[in-house]
């Protein structure tokens, strides 16, 4: 292997088979047919595929890739300026109006469920963090609850209140970031700066209590890792006293803005029946009028004692989802005040051994994350690793709504609707 010839950075070419031969081999192996060669590919200098890149396999694909008169396929590829992560949308458009849409996922699939089957229960709580990376505390909350059910214990009350506190703080900055991303995707570059200032303050607070800015390794089976400390409490007080004014400032930029209203009202309406049938949960469902909140439906420990209402909106358009999230930020702030009033003293972690070996059984725990119903189904076989660890991520299910919503809208509205659904690709692709 000498270094004298320039080597190429591209993937080595597959064996040059005859097209019929390759099709036969692929059919025999049971994998999808070969990509369709794009006519201009040899001039591109890199591997270039067209859309669709292989012949359609299923009914829905055939329906999508059959073009009528005047229709065109446009690819919004895995790298695009929208900030939701890597996701690919194939739009079928007829002169700027979208007629159909296909979501291609998997560009961030990391195999977390499989990795968790080989990890101890406490290690699983660290693997789960980078799923829905904007709401790291929620990702850990559901597995912690599920493992506690398997093991048969409950976290001490102070730990439950601290959990609720950090979870509500996480919800505040996650919804705030959604506001920023919604404006950013429609071209407004200023609100995202305000959202990130807010996020930096809260995240510095959470790093004072957990040690990490983003992928907090804070929850344990049986409680939380650290107790509150002086720095956390002082930052919490400072933030709390400024938060309402901050929120009002952020809102002023966006909420009464005429361009924003014109671009978001009556756009991307999800009806009640569609939302229930498609499995949409969380603020998106409540903005369509269904009063379902996991914190009220199946209250997990701290929320049984806290008072709050379930907020809903009337229509299900983009503007309502935005208003719903602002209302939920205010609700979270009142919840934080109640938590700080009611927090008891006591230990923050139950006495559990280092490696937990629960009895064989099954457990299901669901929590309300900023994106919807986040749940964990865990099966234990008595050993130190979970036998099956399954996470149901809300963003994945919410994305099914896109092919229903988009027909009839313009391409530019795609980003507004997507930002209002607030998916996070880490959770979508696990």
């Amino acid at each position, binding site marked *: 292997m000498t270094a004298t010839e320039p080597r190429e950075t591209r993937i080595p070419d597959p064996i040059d088979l005859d097209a019929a031969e390759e099709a036969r081999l692929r059919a025999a*192996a*049971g*994998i*999808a047919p070969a990509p369709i060669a794009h006519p201009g590919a040899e001039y591109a200098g890199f591997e270039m595929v067209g859309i669709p890149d*292989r012949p359609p*396999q*299923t*009914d*829905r*694909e055939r329906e999508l890739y059959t073009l009528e008169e005047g229709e065109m396929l446009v690819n919004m590829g895995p790298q695009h300026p929208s900030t939701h992560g890597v996701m690919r949308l194939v739009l079928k458009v007829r002169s700027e109006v979208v007629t159909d849409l296909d979501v291609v*996922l*998997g560009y961030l*699939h990391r*195999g977390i*469920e*499989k*990795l968790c089957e*080989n*990890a*101890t229960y406490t*290690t699983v709580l660290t693997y789960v963090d980078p799923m829905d990376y904007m709401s790291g505390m929620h990702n850990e909350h559901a597995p912690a609850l599920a493992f506690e059910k398997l093991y048969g214990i409950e976290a001490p009350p102070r730990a439950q209140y601290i959990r609720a506190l950090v979870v509500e703080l996480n919800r505040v900055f996650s919804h705030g970031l959604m506001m920023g991303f919604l404006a950013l995707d429609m071209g407004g570059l200023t609100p995202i700066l305000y959202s990130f200032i807010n996020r930096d303050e809260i995240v510095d607070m959470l790093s004072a209590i957990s040690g990490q800015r983003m992928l907090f390794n804070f929850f344990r089976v049986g409680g939380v890792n650290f107790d509150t400390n002086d720095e956390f409490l002082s930052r919490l007080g400072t933030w709390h006293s400024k938060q309402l004014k901050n929120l009002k400032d952020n809102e002023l930029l966006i909420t009464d803005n005429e361009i924003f209203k014109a671009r978001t009202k009556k756009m991307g309406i999800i009806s009640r029946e569609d939302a*229930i*049938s*498609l*499995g*949409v949960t969380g603020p998106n469902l409540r903005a369509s009028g269904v009063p*379902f909140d996991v914190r009220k*439906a*199946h209250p997990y420990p701290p929320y049984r004692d806290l008072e709050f209402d379930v907020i809903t909106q009337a229509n299900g358009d983009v503007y309502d989802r935005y208003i719903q999230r602002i209302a939920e930020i205010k609700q979270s702030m009142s919840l934080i005040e109640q938590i700080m009033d009611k927090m008891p003293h006591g230990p923050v972690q139950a006495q559990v051994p280092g490696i937990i070996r629960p009895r064989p059984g*099954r*457990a*299901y725990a*669901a929590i309300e994350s900023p994106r919807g*119903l986040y*749940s964990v*189904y865990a*099966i234990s076989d008595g*050993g*130190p*690793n979970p036998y*099956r660890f*399954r996470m*149901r991520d809300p963003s*994945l*299910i919410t*994305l*099914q709504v896109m092919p229903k919503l988009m027909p009839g809208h313009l391409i530019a509205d795609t980003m507004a609707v997507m930002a209002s659904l607030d998916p996070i690709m880490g959770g979508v*692709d*696990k």
Partner: protein
Amino acid sequence: MRLIGERFPDVVSSLWTDEDTVEITIPGARNLEVLRTLRDDPELAFWMLADEAGVDYGPGVRFEVVYHLYSDLHPAWLRVRATVDRDDPSIPSITGLWEGAMFHEREMYDMLGIIFEGNRDLRRLYMSPDYKSFPQRRDFLLPDDAADSPAAGVNPLERPETWDLVRFANLGPLNPLADAGALPDASAVVADPAGDQPEGSPVEAGETDADASRPR
């Protein structure tokens, strides 16, 4: 609960309750009628499909498709476990009842290989369309599980008794120390390939120090 027991006397094969979950087990072929009754019956009214998961119990055992349902009228989650044969994994799709099951079923097909009859879009969700195997099956092993796989020990690097420490200990012909005689020659060392093991305890294939510290 009792209601479910009296509705489906012939289908449900086991019933189990916990503080907040009711679990029933049904054969996979009957899942459509059971779930439709659960959803439409006014006394049951499980209107929300919270989760649809697939579980693999091992080669030769079975698959399971586990549905979790929510109802306002009942305080507990309902878990419906539908058993699917592992050698011919196919089960009716419930996308007719809840359209939100589409991505769940695509993910289960991608990860476990369960075929859903009636699903209009059964293609891979996460892996690329060329991918050949189903990652979440029990017999798909991650690289660290090589010692568990049937091919353990085929590679001589996995068998310590074949390691040639004599050759690998030689630092090379041009080493200046070698001229001064500071290093032993290849010929001077007694031929003992696993030189660091005490005699009488040969290392067997698959049992090394790594096994003790490997997370099991």
